[in-house]
């Protein structure tokens, strides 16, 4: 499901790897657009995308719901990552 280094984010951070940037780009949304849809700050979206912050379970569900996916399709399960 996810390509590249399973542990390191684009920013070199050790957060849970996610596809937020790709999913956002597919829809042509900016970080600000996504932040408004999630009712969080743009800094939050940036921090999650770059792996500097792992969202809480409610926010992770909200993100997955927004993209019409299940959590595992947005965030990689660290315990099953290669």
């Amino acid at each position, binding site marked *: 499901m996810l390509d590249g280094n399973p542990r390191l*984010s*684009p*920013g*070199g*951070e050790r957060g849970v790897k996610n596809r937020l940037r790709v999913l956002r780009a597919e829809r042509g949304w900016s970080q600000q657009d996504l932040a408004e849809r999630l*009712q*969080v*700050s*743009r*800094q*939050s979206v*940036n*921090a*999650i*995308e*770059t792996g*500097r*912050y792992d*969202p*809480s379970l409610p*926010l992770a569900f909200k993100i997955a719901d927004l993209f019409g996916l299940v959590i595992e399709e947005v965030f990689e399960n660290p315990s099953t990552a290669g």
Partner: protein
Amino acid sequence: MEISPASVRFLWRFIGATLVYGVLITGATWVARNFDPSPAGLIALSILPAIAIAASLIVIGLYLIEESDEYVRRRQAVAMLVSIGILLTLSTALGFLQQRNLIGTVDLLWVFPAWCVLWSITQCSMAIRDCRRAGNAA
């Protein structure tokens, strides 16, 4: 950088509490100097400004409760903890220096303003660090 509604509310409340602190400390000092209060009155006058400090801390606590952005809330909590850690370390070091008569007396009333300054510096440091990391990630 956008400011959340909770941040705006915090800012106004904190400014209010700081103004009350200023009024209380100025008023208490003026009364103590001009009216020669009794020892009990002097104790009350000395403690009075601390009520505004307590109000400021309640305002900070309210902000942490009301901030709906979990990332921003976490950052603020981290900044507070880091600044408390620095302040405790510095004040303990100053305490030992005082104990050995290496420095003069440091007034404890500066503890809260010092923490506010350290909190601000910590937030700025975190913002600069995040900007650098975001730049590296781009």
